[in-house]
């Protein structure tokens, strides 16, 4: 088994929190893991991505080969498309549809959604709205993580456990809100998978 995942977003959107949660769950499941992060220049509102590799065998390269990623998980719609050359033919695209507009030539949402919808295997959801409706506007990333979970080949409960572990320090209420956000994303994906 292997899962090669591209995490995508804009500097400051916290894609590494998703990576850390999946990473913790993977380790808890006795899997091997490599995660290449981005630091430095690209963090000031520029595009950022991270390579997360999980496998039940030793992993060689820190970078995912082009055309071989199983999943793109993006917290921003335009950014989800930037990494298509890395995605395999059978790969899934999981993306937030809420745009992060910090450039003047940001494309129209229609054009973006047309590209995303042209993908047979995709899940697109407005994670920000879903999180807001649950009263936890800051948990959009957990909604996205939930939406990606059916494709991770790590059991749903292991991911939920990892979320609990990461947020315990902040108290039961914060744990519950993040689990709610995660479940909402998960349910969305389950009902939109086909």
């Amino acid at each position, binding site marked *: 088994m292997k899962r090669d995942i591209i995490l995508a977003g*804009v*500097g400051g959107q916290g894609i590494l929190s998703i990576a850390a949660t999946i*990473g913790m769950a993977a*380790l808890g499941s006795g899997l*091997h*893991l*490599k*995660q*290449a*992060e*981005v*630091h*430095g*220049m*690209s*963090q*000031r*509102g*520029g*595009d950022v991505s991270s*390579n997360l590799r999980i496998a039940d065998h*030793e*992993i*060689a*390269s*820190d*970078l*995912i*080969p*082009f*055309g*071989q*990623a199983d999943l793109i998980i993006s917290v921003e719609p*335009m*950014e989800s*498309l*930037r990494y*298509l*050359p*890395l*995605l*395999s*033919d059978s*790969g899934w695209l999981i993306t937030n549809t809420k745009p992060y507009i*910090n*450039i003047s*030539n*940001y*494309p129209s949402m229609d*054009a*973006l959604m047309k*590209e995303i919808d042209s993908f047979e295997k995709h899940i697109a959801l407005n994670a920000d709205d879903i999180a807001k409706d649950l009263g936890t506007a800051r948990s959009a990333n957990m909604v996205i993580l939930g939406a990606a979970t059916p494709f991770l080949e790590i059991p749903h409960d292991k991911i939920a456990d990892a979320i609990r572990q990461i947020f315990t*320090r902040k108290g039961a209420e914060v744990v519950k809100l993040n689990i709610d956000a995660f479940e909402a994303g998960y349910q969305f994906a389950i009902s939109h998978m086909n």
Partner: protein
Amino acid sequence: MQKLMLLGDEAIAQGAIDAGMSGIYAYPGTPSTEITEFIIHSKEAQIRHIRSGWSANEKTAMESALGMSYAGKRAMVCMKHVGLNVAADAFVNSAITGANGGLIIVSADDPSMHSSQNEQDSRFYGKFAMIPILEPSNQQEAYDMVFYGFDLSEKLGLPVLMRITTRLAHSRSGVQRLASREQNGVKLPKNPRQFILLPANARRQYKSLLQKQDAMEEAGLNSGFNSYFDGPDKSMGIITSGIGYNYLMENYPDRIVPFPIVKIGQYPLPHSMISQIYNDCNELLILEEGAPVIEEMLKGFLNLGKKVKGRLDNTIPRDGELNPNIVAVALGKVDTRGKEIPSVVVNRPPSLCKGCPHIYSYNALNQALDTWSKGRVFSDIGCYTLGALDPFDAINTCVDMGASITMAKGAADAGLLPAVAVIGDSTFTHSGITGLIDCVNDHSSITIMILDNATTAMTGGQTSAAFGKIEDICKGVGVHEDHIIVLNPSPKNHEENMAILKKELEYKGVSVIIPRRECIQTAMRTLKESKKQKVGEPVN
């Protein structure tokens, strides 16, 4: 013990703590910064009283580490590749003095220039100084090599260079720790003249360095970091170093490579292994991250003998970092690639944060310079370099740390008046002060803006050696008090700041303007931490 999930940088830091290091010296620089940050924040390092912190620049860091080694303790110095240029004088001469306590220099290269101005390969420096080089291929090796590196350094009495690259520095993987060991006590060098590089001593020391070359190579044959893996297909042999090895293995999912391989993790190169693979195989493929260092050594000037494929014959692109696909193509395998990026996707370059003080410094400067022709702003390296991009288009140069003041001086000497230098506070204490002394001594007509955001922002907000000292430094080196002016770079002061700048641009002499307001990011972080402390949450 359970494995720790560590960045390559963190693995080196944890290794140094566990291997009995007594002090780490560094100047921040991507992708090396997290080594020192890890030790600064490590409880274990505090308990062990390990000295850690930021130096004014890489040269002062290198020399401090050498001093700790002189005193018999193990020391580490960390920098990004271009930092080794700054530390080069101390670095190269440390090979002549040799080490006493174990001394490791970590230089983190950035092929493909993810956040650097060039992609120089630090192995050239190691070879130039004639000291051992260690090049880990993964996080575990990075950890283990720190133990080995300190031992090797103490055994040979030489500093050891550890060369890493971005993808190892910033990638996380499991690391198994070793039993930790004690630090050294203070113990002076046996030979009291070892560190006195007067010509007579230096000649002796240099001879001793030359004599150690065989022992250095021998060490690499026995350390386990250089290996020969035989393979049945001798039509080609592969020599690979550092993370190049991982990209090779990635192309063989069952991890069985048909060709013989020499895996290099330690230099000088092991002659016996290289001759064996050269003799056994019809041709060689060289897979190394960075410059064609090994390849050039093998090929020689005349390129006589068997075919050696690599970056020099374009089997591998001459620039940029390796990846599994580049290696696949070099191995004659099919390249894989998903769909192309759709044309609706546009670039999203990094930009100054909303409310960043640099924005208002540039707005004022741009307007103050309105009446003069373009092309007279010499800048430097830091967040403020983003002033080169739209909508500011405010600066004309960015070369190396400190070059703003001195290049502006040269241009002013040439008659380009007014000439403006724009430099950050941390860059100013890194390498700006000496240039300012040149300007003062020469009565140069230049306007220097020292953008004081109270931190080293570009690399993540480390303390700045300039903090609270800039005016005193300027006064101390002889800038006239009337021309040391502090501004608050904010929109409401725009007109006033612009007017002051305009006036100073007219002044025929050295003028220093200090726009001063804290970086938004560090200000927010301080606020968050103080809030956490109030509710009694742990601060990390």
